[in-house]
């Protein structure tokens, strides 16, 4: 149970983020939901890479023991960077929309439809 906790939390974060994206009409809050999903995915990645008793793969004066394969950590870092770029882009879109439309409500930002 304890070792599954990170996975459960990751799934909860993803689900919370998705629910936020579905029920919140404010575009900024939707992007917050997206960030929650991203955090959940990051947590899942990192918890997959966890090995009980493993040591960091730094070879200089490393203690004895099993080293952890750092692939998922690298993936998480990459995803964090991608996430920053995406969030910045999305927020700047919302800024422009708010300036032009005077609202950031998803139900009013719908000039494109039909």
């Amino acid at each position, binding site marked *: 149970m304890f070792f599954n906790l990170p996975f459960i939390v990751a799934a909860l974060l*993803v689900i919370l983020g998705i629910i936020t*994206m579905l029920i919140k009409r404010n*575009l900024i809050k*939707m*992007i917050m939901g*997206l960030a929650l*999903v*991203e955090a959940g*995915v990051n947590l*899942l*990645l990192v918890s*997959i890479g966890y090995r009980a008793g493993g040591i960091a793969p730094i070879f200089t004066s490393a203690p004895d023991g099993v080293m952890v*394969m750092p*692939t*998922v950590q690298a*993936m998480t870092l*990459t*995803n964090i960077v*991608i996430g920053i*770029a*995406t969030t910045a*882009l*999305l927020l700047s*879109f*919302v800024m*422009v*929309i708010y*300036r*032009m*439309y005077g609202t950031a409500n998803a139900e009013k*930002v*719908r*000039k*494109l439809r*039909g």
Partner: protein
Amino acid sequence: MMQELLLQNLPALLLAVPMLGAFATPLIGKASGGARNLWAVAIMLATLAVAVLLTAQVLSTGTVVYTFGAETPDLTVPADSGGIPIRIIFTVDAMGAFMALAASFVGLGVMLYSFASASRSTGQNGYYALLLLLVVGILGMVCTGDMFNFFVFLEINSLAGAALVASRVDKGVAVEAGLKYAVLSTLGGLLVLFAIALLYGQYGALNIAVIASRMLFTPLDQIALVMLLVALAMKAGAVPMHFWTPDAYSMAPSSITALLVVASQASLYGVFRVVFTLYGLTLEYATIGWIIIILGVLSMFVGVTMAIPQKDVKRLMAYHAVSQTGYMLLGVGVGLAVLGNQQLLDTYGVIAMEGGIFHIINHAMYKGLLFLTAGAIFYRTGTRNLNQLGGLGHSMKWTMVFFIIGALAIAGIPPFNGFASKLMIYESVFLFNPLLAIIAMVVSILTLASFVKVFHSIFMGPRLPEYADVREVPAPMIIGMALLSLLVILFGVFPQEVVDLLITPAAGALIDQGGYIASVLGGA
């Protein structure tokens, strides 16, 4: 020596050239706009040349494997890694090379066209840089043999695409389209990453070939499959997840829309790669095949019926793009549904897949061409509203000719390329399930009907007073359109050559999962 080095590193160059081009473009643009344009087209030409060389290499020597950072590119499994390919590996088989070729060709047409169409707008440095980055994203997706790498290129593709969609703010409407596109593709991308994490957790590998060779199709794998399948199908614009498509396609600059079509098809390639190569025979191919077929039929029918009442010419064409994607899903879905039955696969499964794959390149050509003609009309008249247009056939003769070629090709009228691939789909799908083939033909008729409407309302009728001073578009735009229409005609007149040269190897590469695995892990 130099030549050998070049030929050895083609897969890396395919990405390195446009990426270098993208990041150098703003610097050169600081110095002079003309130099930047020359630089951008030179980069695009070089990318196309690399893609052609790479395709030739793949077709003559089989799947090309490229290991980044290894002593030699074909050293996929390091001696001390315990049999796991630890590095990022590009695995370019006939299918990937085919997609790369199509993407870089459309990229070149778009680049030439952009010289004129973007010349009146601000922020051109960023425009060309993002355009090249979008090409990088597409090429990376179709060449990589690594799941995480695939995700990274998917995100490059989405971000560059969304930024370009929003680039002409257009009172905020274009930004609205960009936001919708970006939110959906980011969410889709994150779910793809979630699926990749599930796969990594089970098999301890990211390489497609390694995962494929160990695939057990556990419940977790099924969850990962559905996430990958649905997220990538959404990026490809399959109904009922197509809502972003008309928004983004209609608000992007026309040149970008032509490239966004290819970007969507890179996601479609992702769908095919996942079901055929990653899962292969382990999945319930009949169920998944039917899911893809139903998505395809829905896309075809809903796409075309939504297109008919549209008033915005680009929105109308965007719905047609959704509808045409349905044909590809239908063709390849039929191939998947009979994957385990060698006899049915030989009778019609392979032909259906070839038709679907042939339709990918044909669609990239004629839909790109149509969006470019729509852009040409917008460039001269400043409106996309069909109710306001009319009589342009008198003044924009070249654009009209290109439009006719594109419209007949998309409606599947001989001798243009759309007919050849649709015929292959009709005849093979008819053997699978006659009803599906009949729906496909009805959709084709409705497509023709819809384009008759567009043709009539834009080009026919008397010369209207408000467009009295409209002239033909500048030469670079005509060259860009001519390039694509030349291929539309050539592919239509010599379909069997194209099928033999590119399509049959591509379909074979998708079916041959064992060959893909062996090319990375060594003889199986």
